[in-house]
């Protein structure tokens, strides 16, 4: 297309040759692997300093001792024994930590089931029913924008709707369906699950949508031609092919809910105990080893769940 190099060559041959040798020299100085290190190194350093080393400290500190106001760097299992206090003595009753984890898992399961259902059908609609690319972009954006706004605001947004004198209650009282405002609408398990679904269905929609748009449409036509009903196509073609997205979305939602303490705190009126909240409470009491011990337990359980789920699908291949 361009002959500028030729022209340049005619005009001053040395210039081009000069720049080539210079380039060759530079390439020799910077080997490709060195350039890769230069490019990826800074991000690696950030993860090292602010993620990997901190995790190591969490594990180390979980075995330290502590008193009312400070850390004592000496080996002790107190963080763990304090956490599991009474677990054997109270059998067959569940101890506090057992009850807390049961509650966390229960919330987790409810949120997972609802976000999966809602996320699947939202993604299905976007991927298969919206035909024009512009509409698809626009509607996906519509689902994404709330993700870029504040979670706390999206939580407190439920207060005027669900509160004692909120829209839902006053509406129900006015229509005569109930006599007294419902108390369980706000600061309850219900509102926690509602808010978590509200905040995190997005994490389900995106990966499932991603898997679905990659499905070759001719496969669905083939299923139709072979006489499959809509339901059969869904179960035997679409769901298996969307499975990677479903698994990735599930991992996101489950790990977020397992570690959540803010939504559960705000929407549960600080009354519901959960795995993440124990850590927060311990930190506020300056019992860092106990907080770290709880973090290690939470990490182990989360890791277990992810390992089980990633057996089903190779995450790296899907990105």
């Amino acid at each position: 297309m361009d002959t500028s190099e030729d022209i340049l060559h005619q005009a001053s041959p040395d210039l081009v040759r000069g720049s080539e040798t210079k380039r060759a020299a530079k390439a020799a100085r910077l080997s490709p692997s060195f350039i890769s290190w230069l490019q990826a190194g800074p991000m690696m350093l950030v993860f090292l300093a602010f993620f990997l080393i901190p995790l190591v400290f969490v594990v180390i500190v979980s075995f330290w001792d502590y008193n009312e106001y400070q850390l004592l760097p000496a080996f002790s299992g107190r963080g763990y024994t304090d956490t599991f206090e009474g677990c054997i003595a109270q059998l067959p009753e569940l101890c506090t930590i057992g009850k807390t984890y049961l509650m966390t898992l229960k919330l987790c399961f409810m949120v997972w089931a609802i976000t999966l259902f809602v996320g699947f059908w939202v993604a299905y609609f976007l991927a298969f029913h919206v035909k024009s690319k512009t509409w698809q972009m626009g509607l996906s954006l519509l689902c994404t924008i709330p993700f870029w706004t504040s979670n706390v605001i999206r939580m407190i947004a439920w207060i005027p709707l669900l509160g004692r004198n909120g829209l839902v209650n006053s509406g129900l009282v006015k229509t005569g369906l109930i006599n007294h405002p419902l108390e369980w609408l706000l600061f309850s398990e219900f509102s926690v699950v509602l808010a978590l679904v509200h905040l995190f269905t997005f994490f389900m929609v995106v990966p499932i949508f991603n898997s679905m748009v990659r499905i070759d449409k001719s496969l669905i036509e083939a299923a139709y031609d072979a006489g499959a009903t809509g339901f059969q196509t869904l179960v035997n073609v679409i769901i298996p092919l969307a499975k990677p997205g479903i698994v990735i979305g599930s991992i996101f939602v489950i790990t977020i809910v397992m570690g959540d303490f803010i939504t559960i705190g705000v929407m549960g009126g600080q009354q519901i105990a959960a795995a993440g909240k124990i850590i927060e409470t311990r930190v506020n009491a300056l019992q860092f080893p106990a907080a770290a011990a709880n973090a290690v337990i939470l990490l182990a359980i989360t890791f277990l769940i992810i390992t089980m789920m990633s057996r089903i699908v190779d995450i790296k291949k899907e990105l």
Partner: protein
Amino acid sequence: MKEGRPRSFYVLAVFFAAYVLFLYGPMIAIYVLSFQGPQGGLTFPMNGVSTFWIAKLFQGTGIVDLGAAFRRSLLLGVIVMIVTVVLSVAAGMAFRRKFKAQSILFYSAIASLIVPSIITSLGISLEFRIIDDLIKAHWNENFETSMGLLTSGLGAHLTWTLPFGLLIMFAIFNRFDPRLEEAARDLGATPWQTFRHVVLPIILPSVIGIGLFGFTLSWDELARSSQAIGAVNTLPLDLQGLTTTVTNPDIYALGTVISAVSFTVITLALGTIHVLNKRQAAKGSDAGKGLV
């Protein structure tokens, strides 16, 4: 469309519309409520319409020192945005070749995304406490703390924004045609010239998307900041602190102001991306136009 739409289309369209209403309805409710009259309370119906509560925030007589927290969050957001864009683009370029530690970086990013935020936050706070103790013990007894907005706070936010940046870069380079770079090299461009004049203009819209994620995720970040931010609070932390004690629409006004910043940034970013895409479509290719 020649065939009529199937019935499932209408069912799912209603479902989708309900989901969007569910997403936006509550948010819109508090934006409206922040314009309550001075006598207004926390719920509907509106008791007059005024900008009383929003004005109160800006006078600084309200619940929090809005100005200071606002400036802190903005500063942190902008720095996080810049660092996220630069590091993600650089690392994204590195991933196009094989290099040692490639999978370590990849799995670190994924783990950083899915390890519960409270654990990362606790870890950073422990790390900085231990550093503080070391400094106090060995160098300076009067040392206060190394924790702060732009040390531990910045690090905590980056562990959240960088994975998103990296994943967006993967998505970009999945669709990127490497022949464009070969062409540039054949025409004698240096690696830097190739990046600056060929690669960067093509990926720029998505790079702005990374910036959008970087800023908005930092601007609203809460869980990771909670233990790692040090003595001062960011705006979302102030807002969270208010949730247990609110009795008047102050909190909605604060929510509306925070959201206004988010929506301004989102609009600016999406607008820029749109203009850039338009321009690429108009000028990007001279294929089929014959020889000049």
